[in-house]
């Protein structure tokens, strides 16, 4: 029951939450989602058994239950997929922009019609809450297809005076944190520009990309225009090294991104990389603090912090540090962690056991190195991979938790005194993907935005995505943009030596 909060007690006033009105479970139904015992490779418009004859299991991170087996593509499977894409290329690139747009519109509409199915499957396979898959992942994925459908017949307006050509066959490797959304980010612009695609989803979250293949078939997309091969890092490595590709697009860790760049050097293949990040929030004393708290929470606890552009560092002006940390601590205590299928869940399961181990290791390092850990006292389920929302205060910029990408629900808090110091600390990282500026002063926003070494600068908001807004990083966060006109630029070859992303 409620703790006594009446003012006559001697202790400092405190709020109490959750004792008086408990939300009953409100679980999204799963009976409309069927998962095959064995999922095959989507090559040349059909599902095929892998030539490798091997399969691997994909599990629900919230329960550790095996959802099904998925084909593990070997080198021969990768080759077959690239050949299918190569065969489909001449007809697809010759198709008029209107016709390519028509297919993309159709895919977008079917995705919307089957939104619930996609949302539930994504939640089962990834562990993220249904409220996020329902309200963010799936609608945004559909928007990406709609947006690029609109560009398909207007490419020449984007690049006046030159005739944009598709690269040809594009190999795309995507991560497990936004499986469907990343597939949409990659496939939609590639197809709009007239490329054909071989996509490899992450081995721990392959199911929605395979369901997307059903949508392609439903939309009667010509066979081979998109091929999806599932498998582990070896399959991804085989794909990006395949000589039949003209371009590679990768989203994932900086480590693997560097490997790919090394492997592609001198191959003539175009490359775009969207890699890790260690984004900072800059909270100034004049900011709308209650809303900044919400933004910081969204920045680091959205998708369990499995976000490359997550705001994992909080730099707060020293004069409001205590006030802001108190607000944040109270707010964190109210984050509802648990069953990802419950519509009231704010934070779901950590995606995998290795990821959980890494998060724990870095938290231990944070404590060892002298930062103070604050964790929400929420009850965590017994089965599955879970980590409570966590904040470290008193973090020195030299500590591992301030430098390494944790890719989990862990926030590192430090302070600054002046705008110059804020800029220096925000840029004191090898990465450069995103940052968030929280201040009520418009002039300060503009002054700061020009000094941030980050591809995305959010002002008084965070983790907002739009297909029309280019997204991407600099330095160890990669190069190339996704979304907007700049994103399409990464999928066309411009005659006259302008090629290369």
């Amino acid at each position, binding site marked *: 029951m409620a703790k006594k909060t009446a003012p006559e007690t001697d202790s400092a006033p405190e709020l109490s*939450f959750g004792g008086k009105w408990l939300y*009953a479970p409100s679980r999204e139904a799963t009976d409309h989602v069927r998962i095959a015992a064995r999922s095959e490779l989507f090559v040349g418009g059909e599902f095929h058994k892998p030539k490798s004859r091997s399969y691997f299991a994909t599990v629900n991170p919230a329960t550790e239950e095996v959802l099904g087996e998925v084909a593990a593509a070997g080198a021969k499977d990768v080759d077959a997929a690239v050949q299918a894409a190569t065969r489909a290329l001449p007809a697809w690139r010759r198709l008029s922009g209107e016709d390519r747009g028509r297919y993309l519109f159709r895919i977008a509409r079917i995705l919307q019609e089957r939104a619930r199915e996609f949302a539930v499957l994504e939640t089962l396979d990834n562990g993220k809450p249904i409220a996020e898959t329902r309200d963010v992942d799936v609608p945004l994925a559909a928007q990406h297809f709609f947006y690029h459908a609109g560009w398909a017949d207007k490419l020449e307006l984007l690049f006046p005076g030159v005739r944009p050509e598709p690269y040809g066959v594009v190999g795309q490797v995507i991560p497990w944190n936004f499986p469907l959304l990343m597939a949409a980010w990659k496939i939609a612009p590639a197809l709009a520009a007239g490329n054909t695609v071989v996509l490899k989803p992450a081995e721990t979250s392959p199911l929605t990309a395979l369901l997307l293949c059903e949508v392609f078939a439903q939309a009667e997309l010509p066979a081979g225009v998109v091929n999806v091969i599932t498998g582990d890092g070896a399959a991804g490595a085989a794909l990006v090294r395949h000589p039949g590709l003209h371009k590679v697009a990768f989203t994932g860790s900086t480590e693997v991104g560097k490997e790919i760049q090394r492997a592609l050097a001198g191959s003539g293949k175009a490359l775009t990389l969207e890699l890790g990040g260690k984004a900072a929030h800059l909270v100034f004393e004049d900011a709308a603090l209650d*809303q900044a708290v919400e933004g910081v929470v969204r920045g680091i606890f959205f998708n369990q912090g499995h976000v490359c552009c997550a705001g994992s560092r909080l730099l707060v002006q020293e004069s409001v540090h205590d006030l802001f940390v108190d607000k944040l601590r109270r707010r964190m205590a109210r984050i509802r962690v648990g069953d990802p299928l419950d519509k009231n869940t704010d934070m779901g399961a950590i995606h995998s056991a290795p990821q959980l181990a890494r998060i724990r290791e870095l938290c231990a390092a944070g404590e060892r190195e002298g930062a103070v850990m604050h964790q929400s006292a929420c009850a965590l389920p017994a089965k599955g991979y879970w980590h409570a929302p966590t904040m470290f205060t008193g973090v020195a910029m030299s500590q591992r938790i301030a430098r390494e990408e944790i890719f989990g629900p862990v926030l590192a808090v430090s302070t600054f005194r002046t705008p110059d110091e804020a800029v220096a600390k925000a840029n004191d990282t090898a990465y450069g993907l995103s940052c968030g500026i929280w201040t009520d002063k418009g002039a300060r926003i503009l002054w700061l935005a020009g000094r941030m070494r980050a591809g995305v600068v959010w002002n008084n*908001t965070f983790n907002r995505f739009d297909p029309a807004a280019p997204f991407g990083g600099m330095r160890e966060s990669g190069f190339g943009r996704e979304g907007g006109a700049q994103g399409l630029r990464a999928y066309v070859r411009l005659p006259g030596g302008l090629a290369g992303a």
Partner: protein
Amino acid sequence: MPSLHPTEFRVPPVDAVALETRAAQLATRSLKKAAKVQGLKLAIAMMDLTTLEGADSPGKVQQLCGKARRPFPARDDVPSCAAVCVYPDLVAIAVDALAGSGVQVASVATGFPAGRTDRQTKLREVELAVAAGATEIDMVIDRGAFLAGRYGDVYDEICAVKEACGDAHLKVILETGELQAYDNIRRACRIAMLAGGDFVKTSTGKVSPASTLPVVLLMLEAVRDHFLATGRMVGVKAAGGIRTAKDALKYLVLVNETCGDAWLSPQWFRFGASSLLNDVLMQLEKERTGRYQRPTDFSTD
């Protein structure tokens, strides 16, 4: 009465986009079964059943008091409403009709709804309402003074009204639809809390927009911060435009997740509404029986 230094009325800025985003996010909470029933009953217990029309008569007020005492006599587990809210001249009727029920009598006062009358008249109106037996006074702030930047005048007037209330609880109506900017609303909250208001209330119900989710979220944040800074609890009343059970539950979610358990009580959160009650009753019956009843199964008054 000494006024406060103007710096006391300073408030932190409010970001409109982010505030509305948070309110919309909380509005997606899904309330089922036991949680829904508990919430709906709480909403009834928090309701100030209101009639504020030129045509109000003793008969109408008596009818409303009957409904507030026993909103749904067929079911014993349906609680009474928190209060009946009327104009000052009908307070005595309501006091009679509610004797022994525990339902409070609230009276609007201070030249409701515009508040455009002199302070003496306002204070006299409060005194008469309290003398007639009103235990709660819903005053309106001087929006003209507020918008002209005379925050000290607004503060002084609330202090004076609070004094005139004696033991009666004072609810301070900000008329957020006229203040419009969220920064104004946050500042008006601060003035009302500093001046001793027991409740801050959104609206008279005579101005559109009346109560909205972002406005009430902002007011809850203001009372939460006031409590954390001073230890003094102030209540919030959402009034006007709340017509459905679904809406009422959204407001309760705001209370639950902003101020927490202590505010989930008629003592600290109220709904000011006239047509909301029957929709809540209908939803309660639906939860009990699994079927929707006809609207005619619930009395109009």
